[in-house]
Each structure stands twice: as C-alpha cells, then as structure tokens.
C-alpha cells in the first residue's frame, strides 16, 4: 500500500492598514483594551454600511502579484451568511466568485505549489473564554471585527508536513517582504488551516480518503504535528473502514496542541450552505491595468530575485546568498553596508561579517539588526583597511560587533586596541629578532623541522599583540633563520 498525502493550505493574513476593512476604526487590535476600536459599522449596528478600504485592496493586489497571481480588474464582494457570536452582522463580507488575485504559484526547493487565489475579506471578533463568578463565560471583543484579511488558498500540491511548513515560511517571507503584514503566527496575524486527505494505492487500485480541514493550529510546529497526526489517523482509518472521499463526508477537526491530536468538530462539511450572494452595499471594485501597473511598481525585489542577484552580482555562494536574502531587514542592512562600494570583494567581506560575528551577536542578544546602526562609511573603512592589510579579517570580525554596538568607526577601534596590522618589514624584523633570542629551543626545533615555524609565528603575533601581518612575519622569520 502506497500512501501519498494531499495537503492544501488556507492561509489568512491580517493586513496592517491604519483603518479597518469597511470602516475608519483603528485596525490594530493586539493587546488593545477590548471593544475600544469599534463603531456602528464593525459592530454591525442597524443601518450601518460598509465602505471598502482602498489601501487594503491595493495591499491584496500587491500580495497577489508577489505570489505570481493574475489580478482581476473588476472584482466584487459577497456575503457569506452564518451565525456565530463573534460575527456581528451574521454575515462575513468576503469574495467567492471573483477574488482580487487568482492562479499564482510559489516554488519551494524546486517544487512548484500552485496558488488558487488570494481574496479580500474581513476578520471576525474574538471570543474570550473566562470564568466569571464561578461560571464559564464567553466574552466578545470586537476590536478585531472588520480587520482586513487576505485569504491565500493553495492547490493541494503539498505532500508532506515538512513541505507544508516550508510553504508557510515562504508565504510569511513574501508577506513580510511585500510589507503588508508582520505575518506573526503566534500573534495570530497569520493563521493557517490545512486540509488533508490521502491518495492510497493498493494492488493497482487508487483510493482517496475523506478530507479533513484542521482548525485552531497556532504555531509552525503545530501545523506539522497536526498534519502528521491526520496522515497517521487517516491511514489507520482507511485500513479499518476503507471509507473513501465523497461530496458529503468532509469533516472539520480541531487541533489540540496539548494532547497533540486532532478531534472531530463538525461532520458533513459538504452540506454547509453559506448562501453567498453579491454584497448589495458595495459596488464592484475596479482597478485598471494602469492602476495595477502602479502597484506592481511598488513591489520590492522579492527574495528569489535577491538570492539570484547576490550570486551573479557579488559572486556569493548559494549558502551565503540564501542567508542574506531570507529576511528583508537583514538584506536591507547588508545592502546598506556595501552601498558605498558595491563590489564583489566588498560584498564577500561584509557577508562574512554579517553572517559571522554580527549574527552571533544578534543571536545572543535576541535582537533584530537595526538598519539605523549600519553606517556604510564604517564598512567602507574596514574594507579599505583589510584590503591594505592594515587589519586582518580576524580583527575585522572582532571589531565589527563593538562598532555596531557603540556606533564608532571599526578602524578606530582597531587602532585604539593596538590591532592595526603591521606590514612594515623593519618593524616586524625588530620583533622577530627578539622572538628568536627569547626562544632558543624553538629555533633549534625549526632547524631540524622547518614545519615547526608555526610556533615562532605564534610567538611573534603574540608579541605584536596580533598586529603583525602573519604572511610578512613568516617571510622575515624564515629569512633571519636561514
């Protein structure tokens, strides 16, 4: 029996616009006092009407373009009717027939995953479960009600939990690059609902197991674990029942992160009827080719493009180019650092500094790289000093962290610490002579075994407090001991 998982992901991304999707309320809601960012529109009061937020629509188009989608010039909103306490109007304004963006794709490790659509909708309020006067109660916070959401729906092209995680990371990266959301899964500004079933090949026959949509997944590892649990569960269920997919046996399952298992929430998903119809309160939304073109112009260079450019323009290897282009802020800092001398040599040195001591420092302090602290002059100075062999690559790595922390010129730091590399032969010769007189035993050793010169070089470097150019030091020692 051969099992191939069929996984599709619905990803919701909260857009970081100033105001909500259909009213002028503040769209930020994380940690805000409950029900303070509300108005008649997002509370669904009688008579209130939605007016679409043009910026949110532009963001959706921008994201759609970054996902390689085709953009519909004319779209419209629809009402999805259902009851839920956090849904103020008892319908959600969303898009079904004509989303802003359709037919995109992204590539992960060489494999293409098709994007069915990216459409615009509004978020619901939030249910907060509390015990009040010893009774289990549910409170509703409508601050989130009406916050703009883009729903990105993949085709079921994902075949493993690992790939699902990478897909999410890729979407997150693109969203952040485009700058329309922080796409924080823990904060809930990016949410994910996987739908899973299995293709089972058995004795030349092919079966498909019933589909399950998984809700309440709130972390990256959760997504992986939930999908893996479903794969195992469905495999076992198929072996026992041999039940296959039908139009009425799709289920909704919740993810219990504590018990590490999914549980049945709703059966017969196929029969749910949301009575979609075009939202009569909002006329069709039209973006001309010209307007879409203008949005396209605002698209930043995407990670893939950056990755390629770092390789061709700067000759960086795969590994470095990838690390530098993964995070938008990191790559921006990198580009700023080399901006005064964007050459291959400069890029290679700065890449080493960024991915070496600077990254270690950031990991230790748990900080993001601060672009305001990246002074291109400093990086140019340090590059020039290394080129002229005034400081060594090792010293450069040492001083760059202090320079970043204090905002001082790294070359000045090297000078003040006496770390400037001495390449002046007469200066080095003076030190070499001292080293030779003080290390008679080592000199003897060298004469028997020239390979042991390393010890003498080490002593010389120590005596020069690391400032001697080791290449020149070696040459001089060899000359004196001939």
């Amino acid at each position, binding site marked *: 029996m051969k099992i191939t998982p069929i996984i599709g992901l619905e990803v919701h991304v909260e857009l970081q616009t100033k105001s909500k999707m259909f009213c002028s309320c503040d769209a930020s809601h994380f940690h805000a006092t409950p029900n303070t960012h509300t108005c008649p529109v997002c509370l669904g009061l*009688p008579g*209130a*009407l939605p007016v*679409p937020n043009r910026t949110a629509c532009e963001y959706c188009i921008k994201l759609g373009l970054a996902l390689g989608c085709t953009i519909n010039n004319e779209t419209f909103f629809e009402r999805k009717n259902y009851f839920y306490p956090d849904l103020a109007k008892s319908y959600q304004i969303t898009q079904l027939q004509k989303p802003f963006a359709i037919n995109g794709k992204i590539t992960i490790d060489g494999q293409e995953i098709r994007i069915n659509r990216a459409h615009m909708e509004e978020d619901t309020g939030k249910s907060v479960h509390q015990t009040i006067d010893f009774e289990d109660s549910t409170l509703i916070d409508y601050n989130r009600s009406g916050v703009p959401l883009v729903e990105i729906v993949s085709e079921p092209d994902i075949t493993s939990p690992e790939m699902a995680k990478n897909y999410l990371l890729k979407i997150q990266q693109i969203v952040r690059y485009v700058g329309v959301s922080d796409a924080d899964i823990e904060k809930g500004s990016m949410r994910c609902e996987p739908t899973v079933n299995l293709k089972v090949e058995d004795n030349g026959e092919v079966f498909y197991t019933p589909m399950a949509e998984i809700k309440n997944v709130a972390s990256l590892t959760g997504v992986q674990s939930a999908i893996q649990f479903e794969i195992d569960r469905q495999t076992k269920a198929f072996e026992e029942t041999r039940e296959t997919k039908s139009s009425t046996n799709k289920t909704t399952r919740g993810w219990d992160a504590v018990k590490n298992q999914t549980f049945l929430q709703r059966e017969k998903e196929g029969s749910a*009827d949301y009575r979609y*119809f075009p939202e009569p*309160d*909002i*006329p069709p939304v039209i973006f001309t080719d010209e307007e879409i073109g203008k949005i396209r112009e605002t698209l930043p260079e995407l990670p893939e493009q950056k990755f390629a450019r770092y390789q061709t323009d700067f000759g960086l290897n795969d590994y470095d180019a990838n690390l530098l282009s993964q995070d938008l802020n990191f790559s921006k800092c990198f580009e700023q650092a080399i901006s005064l001398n964007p050459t291959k040599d400069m890029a290679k040195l700065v890449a080493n500094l960024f991915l070496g001591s600077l990254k270690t420092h950031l990991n230790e302090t748990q900080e993001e790289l601060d672009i305001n602290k990246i002074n291109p002059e400093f990086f140019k100075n340090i590059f020039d000093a290394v080129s002229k062999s005034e400081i060594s690559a090792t010293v450069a790595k040492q001083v760059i962290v202090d320079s970043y922390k204090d905002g001082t010129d790294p070359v000045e730091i090297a000078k003040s610490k006496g770390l400037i590399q001495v390449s002046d032969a007469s200066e080095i010769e003076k030190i070499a002579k001292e080293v030779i007189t003080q290390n008679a035993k080592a000199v003897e050793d060298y004469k028997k075994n020239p390979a042991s010169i390393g010890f003498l070089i080490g002593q010389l470097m120590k005596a020069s407090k690391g400032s001697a150019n080791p290449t020149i030091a070696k040459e001089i020692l060899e000359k004196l001991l001939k």
Partner: protein
Amino acid sequence: MELNKLTLIDAIKGIKEKKFSSTELVSDCLTKIEQLEPTLNAFVTINKDQALEQSKNINFDKPLAGIPIAIKDNFCIKGIRTTASSKLLDKYIAQYTSTVVQKLLDAGAIVIGKTNMDAWAHGSSTETSDYGPTKNPWNPKHLPGGSSGGSAASVASDEVVTSIGSETAGSIRQPSAWCGTVGLKPSYGRVSRYGVIAMGSSMDCPGPITKTVDDAALLLSIISGHDPKDATSVNQNPWQIPTPLKDLKGIKIGLPKAYFPEQMKPAVKTAVLNATKTLKKLGAEVIELDVLDPKYAIAVYTVLQRSEVSSNLARFTGIRYGEPRSAFGDEAIRRIMLGTYTLSSGYYDAYYLQAQKVRTLIIEDFDKQFQKVDAIIGPTSPTTALALGASEGQSMFGELEDMLVEPSTLAGLPGISIPCGFGDGLPVGLQIITPQLREDLAVQIAKLFESNTDYHLQHPKL
C-alpha cells in the same frame, strides 16, 4: 391660526420673517398630534419635550431653521428610540444618527417624532406594524398605504408640516398616492442609506413625503449628495432645485398600456387619464408605450428583496437588541424563510441569479423607453386606499399594490407621486418616472401639474 396646516415653504418663511416662532409651530403640531393620534396612530414615538426645548434655540441662518419634521421609524437618530415598528427593537435607542437626519439637523430642523410603518418596512399598508395600524386621514376605516404610512398620514392630516420616508418599492409613492401627499423617491444612490435600517439594500432609498412639490424639492436638495459612509451613494453634489417650467412644450411623455391592468379601480383610471389631458393642455406630447409587463418586476422584486432581507435581518438574531428573536412578526419570518430558500445552494441559480438577469432586462427596457420619451407617467397604485384588514392573509399584498412602481424601483429610477383626483372621497396618485438622476424633470412636470390643479389644496375632514 393652526400653523401645522402650513406647507414647509410657508412655515420656513413665517419663522424667518418672525410672523411666528418655531415653538409656536412645534406646539401647534404637537396639539394636532395629541388630538389625532388616538384616531390615526401615525407615530411610534413622539419627541415632545426635546422638540419643544430645541424650538427655543434657533439659528435663523439655516435653511430649515426651527422646522419640526416627522421621520420614519427606520432612521437611526442618536438617543432616540428606533424600532422600525418591530417589537424586536422596542427598547432600542440608536447609538448614532443616520446621514439623512444629520443633514436635516444640520439644516436646523427639529425631529418631532418617529412615524409608524410596516414592521421592518415589509408591506404596503402600515397594517403590519407591531404598534398597530395607521389609519388613512381621508377615511380612518381605510389604510394609509405603506410602508411609510405614518409619514404620509401625518402630513396629510396636518399633524406636521413635512416628513421623511423611505422606499424600497413603493413605500414613499404608494402611501403618498393613498393619502394625497407628494412623495418623491429619488434615484438609487442620490440619498445616503447610512443609518437607515436596511430592507432591500440594492433598492432602499430615503425621500421626502410632503404637502407640495416645492416642499419635496427643498427637502431633496438638503438630504441628497454623496456620502462617504455609503459606498452606493452616487458621487454627486447635493441635488439642486430646478427652475420651474412655463409649459411642457417639447416634452414627450409616455403612457404605458401595461400600467392600466384589468383589476384597476375605474376611478383611478379616470383620474390618471384626466391628468394626461391636463399635461397635454400644458403642451406635452403624450404617447402610448409598450413596456415590459409589470408582472415580471413583481417576481424579480419578490426574489431579490426577500434574499436581501434574509441576510439583512440576520444581525438581529446574532447580537440581540433587548428582545428575543421570537419578537419577529409573521411577515418578517415569512420573508426570511423565502429569502433563505432563494439564496440556498441549488436554488440560487434558479431564483436569485435569474432574477438579477431579468432585472437587467427591466433596466434595458427603461433605457429603450427613454430614447422615445422624456418621462413616463401612470397611476401610482392600481387602487385607492383599501379598507383596514385588506392586507391580512395576503402575503403578496404589497407586491400587487406596488406593481406599478416596482419596475422603476428595480431600475433605480427616480419617481414622484402627486395627487391627481379622488375616487369615493379617497385620493388618487399620479406617478412621473424619469431617467436616472433626472429628478429635476420629474419635479418640473409635477410642479407645473400641481400649479394647474387644486387636488393638493384639499384637506381631509377629521
């Protein structure tokens, strides 16, 4: 002098010229309301104390300085109970003010009360109000029409000088016809819907119900204009009152044969045909038109309106407004069920989608007609005011009574109903329909007709 008998224009003049005070005007209206309400029941809420208080502090620079105005009870007004004549909202105090009312308040008007209507505006009789039926001032054994029956009755009976109603299909024009008032239904989008409890969102339209055409024109000029809070409001400046016409020379008016169905009351037909003669005398060329049978509009309207209603009313059973959902009346439940059915999967294509397609055909038919004529006239309603109880057990009552206004409603066209005669002591309404955003022409024709007739000068004897 009973100041409540004044037209809006005369009341404004009187206050500005200090012939009387706003307080005197408000008091006279309140006296008349107290006298007639036991008979008419035109109001759900009377804003007595606040209105009197506000009348004492008037800014004479404003166009409606100190004018009391009756507002249909589906307009939200902050701090005032807003029920849409449904017990479900019996205790609901609106949290904000609708754009139309805000514009009236900004113009200096005073809200004197909220008028009765069919609950949720579902009807054409005002008999389905949870607060009891409103009676027709011309004969209290008869209905005022609806759903803006309270607004029309309050104006016709001189309880107030003027009022605001709203129409989805006929709710301004039909009660105006039955009560002998002027009802101006603007183009869809001309007047903001923000803050009006939604019925059929793709058709809802606020508008004035008044004693004269001039009064209606003045109110439209104040309440119209683009509203950033209503995405369907047209991007136009407030409507401007047109200069009156001297005659109708060069104006072609169409008279659709289909607007005179067999079941029409003869007195209505006679009055409208007489009106046609008056228009001809004024210089208009009147031609017969072949238009789409209004029966298609009834079907389309029924499906679309029920569909929208089923979704619009859903919010009242999510968040509650003080009453359980069992407070929904039979008519609302019927409409929710029908609309839920027409939108459900498997039936959507056959009903909702099909209705939208036919709606497009109706729009195209009007476009075609308006290549031939400048305006279309006809009876507003096939009958004069029916007796109380006529709507009971008739779930399609409104659709049949409104069959002659439903086609133009579906096309989003403006229309005005003006008094054009009487049958058995009850008023008959003439409607004038013009192309999109051509309220000016409808008002000009109506004004000229009014100037040459005296139907609007007659008052019910109560």
